């Protein structure tokens, strides 16, 4: 793709995905707030066949928040691709190659995914403690391990891009020096 195509495609994705993401996240927050402030306090002290009502309500809230976040993950991916494309076009080397765009997209995706999952855990963690505190702890450890791996691969993508940029600059300098030597 040419630079102009990458720029147009990225802007189109941002226009399409960002408002959708805002709606998904707002509704997820709304469900969380209704569950935590209204339904769960009302459900304390009641049970059906030995299962506490607050636990059932927490499970419904967790599933719905997860479904919403699953749907919003596609928008997050599109948004990250768009931002990565724009960074490659505006900040990267001359002529945005597919490989360069892919590197920036991978880096942005990794960082944004980690933030998104951490924010999701802030929601789900408090609902999950209503069901099982141990499960919340195990989930936190798994998220931490995943975040380390994801950030590492993002870092590697950025480092590959920095290396390529450094090589390009070095080659330019070498050419400049060779040209000057020829002139003398």
């Amino acid at each position, binding site marked *: 793709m040419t630079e102009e195509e990458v720029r147009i495609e990225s802007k189109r994705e941002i226009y399409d995905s960002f408002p959708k993401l805002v709606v*998904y996240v707002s509704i997820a927050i709304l*469900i969380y707030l209704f569950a935590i402030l209204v*339904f769960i306090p*009302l459900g304390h002290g*009641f049970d059906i066949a030995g299962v506490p*009502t607050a636990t059932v*309500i927490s499970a419904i809230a967790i599933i719905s928040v997860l479904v919403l976040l699953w749907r919003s993950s596609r928008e997050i991916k599109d948004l990250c691709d768009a931002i990565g494309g724009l960074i490659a076009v505006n900040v990267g080397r001359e002529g945005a190659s597919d490989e360069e765009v892919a590197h920036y997209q991978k880096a942005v995706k990794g960082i944004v995914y980690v933030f998104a999952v951490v924010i999701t855990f802030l929601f789900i963690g408090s609902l999950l403690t209503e069901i099982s505190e141990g499960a919340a702890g195990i989930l936190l450890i798994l998220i931490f391990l995943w975040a380390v791996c994801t950030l590492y691969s993002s870092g590697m993508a950025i480092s590959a891009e920095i290396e390529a940029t450094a090589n390009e600059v070095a080659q330019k300098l070498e050419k400049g020096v060779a040209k000057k030597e020829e002139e003398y």
Partner: protein
Amino acid sequence: MESINKLLLQIVLLIITVLPFIAYTELGKIESTSEPIRNAVEVINNSIYNAIHFTSAMLEPFIPPELGTAHDIVLSCILIAGMLLTVILAVLIVRTSANIITEWAMGKDA
């Protein structure tokens, strides 16, 4: 335009679904020195309790004892149904909003 009307309808339905639960949660927290307000809160509370007790008494013969007391089951079912309805309406709102946004983005492209 149709989608926007649908979205507004869904938002109104969500508010109607959740409002009684919010009102019930907040009723117990009202501490007013004004006697008419205190009386009104007491009347509403009593009406809710009476309605729940009446329904529980009607359903009690049909509920197996291993499931728990009729009062607990009626209250739990109301709460779970409220939560489910809230979630369903929220998902519908998301779907309609996504359609509206897609139409808007396509219009911007054109």
